[in-house]
């Protein structure tokens, strides 16, 4: 019966929905999630790779050409892409992906965000009024986003709704199992004091219980200065950190400097899918992140 109803509904929707949903993801992690859910029913384009700072890329012609044809934009939101995405959306001539339409999806809006500033003032650096946008490094957030994303994908492409729901169900159960494994593996990391290049790992630290003692950037988005680095060095005497963390798209110089001065390892974490050879997909991303943390903390 359900199948009959479904095909009836699909028939109604067939006129509006295309066979394939074209997804324009601003960052690799949400592109990977759309692929997990959609499988071969979606065509995913990622606007950035793991070696690009998603806050600092430009509204390139190639992005406009892709946005023009997209059926769904999966953005991080929370102002992360504010320097280029609004322009790409407006100039794309694509009505379906404008904010407020079903074709525009913001991952950060689906979860509780950390670091929401009490005062929004650029004297504190490039602060995001909506809070820290790097939400995906808490796997519980990935699960929440997946749940909302599958609903959106099914709404936009009703013909493939069952496939998406099946893809999501398979992903969610696999993810929950993996989360249990990761939490077990990462248990020794609880309370581990670390330094970070930028607040890229706030959600990872929140999830695993890492203690972030400071960041190499004096203020978010302001490049590490010698003043800040020597202050961290002084702090190291009183309150020693064990690791200094950075993403694949951040310069290695400052963390190598701190590492050289203090003897603690500078650890590159994949941060997103593709950031290291091991981080081939979302599962690989977390597997490798935890392995690298454990190795560094040894």
């Amino acid at each position: 019966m359900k199948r009959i109803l479904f095909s009836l509904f699909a028939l109604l929707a067939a006129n509006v929905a295309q066979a394939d949903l074209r997804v324009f993801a601003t960052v690799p992690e949400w592109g990977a999630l759309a692929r997990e859910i959609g499988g071969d029913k979606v065509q995913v384009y990622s606007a950035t790779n793991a070696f690009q700072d998603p806050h600092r890329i430009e509204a390139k012609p190639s992005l406009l050409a892709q946005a023009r044809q997209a059926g769904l934009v999966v953005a991080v939101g929370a102002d992360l892409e504010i320097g280029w995405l609004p322009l790409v959306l407006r100039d794309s001539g694509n009505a379906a992906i404008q904010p407020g339409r079903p074709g525009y999806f913001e991952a950060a809006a689906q979860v509780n965000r950390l670091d929401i500033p009490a005062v929004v003032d650029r004297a504190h650096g490039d602060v995001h009024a909506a809070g820290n946008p790097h939400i995906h490094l808490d796997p519980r957030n990935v699960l929440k986003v997946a749940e909302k994303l599958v609903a959106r994908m099914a709404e936009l492409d009703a013909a493939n709704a069952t496939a998406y729901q099946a893809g999501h169900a398979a992903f969610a159960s696999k993810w929950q199992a993996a989360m249990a494994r990761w939490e077990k593996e990462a248990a020794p990391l609880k309370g581990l004091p670390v330094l970070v290049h930028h607040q890229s790992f706030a959600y990872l630290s929140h999830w695993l219980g890492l203690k972030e003692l400071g960041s190499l950037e004096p203020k978010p988005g302001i490049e590490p200065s010698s003043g800040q680095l020597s202050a961290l060095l002084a702090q190291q005497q009183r309150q020693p950190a064990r690791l200094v963390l950075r993403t694949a798209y951040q310069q290695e110089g400052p963390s190598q400097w701190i590492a050289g001065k203090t003897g603690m390892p500078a650890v590159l974490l994949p941060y997103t899918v593709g950031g290291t050879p091991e981080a081939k997909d979302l599962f690989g991303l977390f597997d490798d992140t935890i392995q690298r943390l454990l190795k560094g903390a040894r």
Partner: protein
Amino acid sequence: MQKRFAMAAMLAASFGAHAADNSELAAIRAQIDDMKRAYEQRIAALEQKLSQAEAKSAVAPAPVVAAPAAAERRPAAASSASGFNPEVSLILQGQYKNMKDVAERGITGFWPAGGHDHGEGAVEGINKRGFSLNHTELVLAANIDPYWRGQAIIATLDGTAEVEEAWFQSLGLGHGIGLKGGRFRSGIGYLNEQHPHMWDFADAPLMYQAMFGTHGSYAQDGVQFKWLAPTETFVEFGAEIGRGANFPGTDRNKNGSGAAAVFAHVGGEVGVSNSWRAGVSYLTTRAKSRTAHFAGTVDDEVEGLFDGRSQSYIADFVWKWAPNGNPKYQNFKLQTEYFQRREKGDLTCATPDDAGAAVACDGLLSAYRTRQSGWYAQGVYQFTPHWRAGLRYEQLDSGVRDFGDNAAYLLVDSYRPKKASAMIDYSWSEFSRVRLQYAQDKSMLGITDNQVTVQYIMSLGAHGAHKF
């Protein structure tokens, strides 16, 4: 989802009721009853779970680490009208400039856009000596409703406030179509749409100053239509019509349009590290009694009035490189544009207002035909997150200037203006920049002007998004 299916089923059932025979109807009813029962069971199960959970949490108060208070999603900003405030940003820009004191500053061999080669109407080109404030730009922008977006840019300077741009843009037309109306910077060329705070050098290239005068860009009141092709390669076409009141045209109290422009852009990526855009543009407009002062052969100074058609062709090319496509630490930008302008019509000789007696050629009407060109090329390299350095070279060609019978009375210079500039700038953040520029300007016949400019650009307020 299932609920929606059920609704659809009910709808379908009600529509089909007349046609369907009784057995089918009964079957559907039975199925709906089945679903209802299934739902009731599930709801009951959920309720049971909920009550269990509540009981549990009452016993053991949340052992899970609660998210810090700051993590709570805030309720939407206070529900007052202020929630609808537009994005506001303000650009502060000023400079110190060291250069020669030239009475008649302009570009030799080119029609002075301001009408006058000197004084207030001269090619401004940000040409005050010493300390000065450039335009202070106030930008207001917001979505008007789901279908339109609006933006206004007000430039203020000492007692004047000028509406630089004020337009609305479509959001919801789809099919790759973009519609813009109001006063806007034309989509021709590459640099034309960019405001001075986005320039990589302290002044506009000579080419833009010669083409469009004081602002170094062409803006008009009108409408713009753009279409982005549904292809993997970026292909965009645009057309504009408008009032055409600005140089090289003039305001001509008439119905219909005063200027038209068309442009086409293509662009894409080469590997992950390179992206590019190339374009061609065409602008046509007309001038009526477009006035300029010329040095005369008989009299010292004569006035010339041009009536006729002005056509401009522009080709532009931009190439950007960044390692791995991440421009934050290092990037390089190569930008070059070429233009050709053809003007055809009549030139009338007249006596300047401040002249003592009528000039020799007063009232003489002759043919007027010009064909002029120019280009610039610049490269800017950001070698650390804070520092950028750039070089620019530019050259114009006064080309063909046929003044007909008036050529006997007007001094017709043939000249190739040249300018070379080098700049280095420092940015504390995305929002603040200071720049040092050195330029050797040979845009005026017989004068080599070595210019040093120190400039600051600060933007406060909403985080702007910049075009490629």
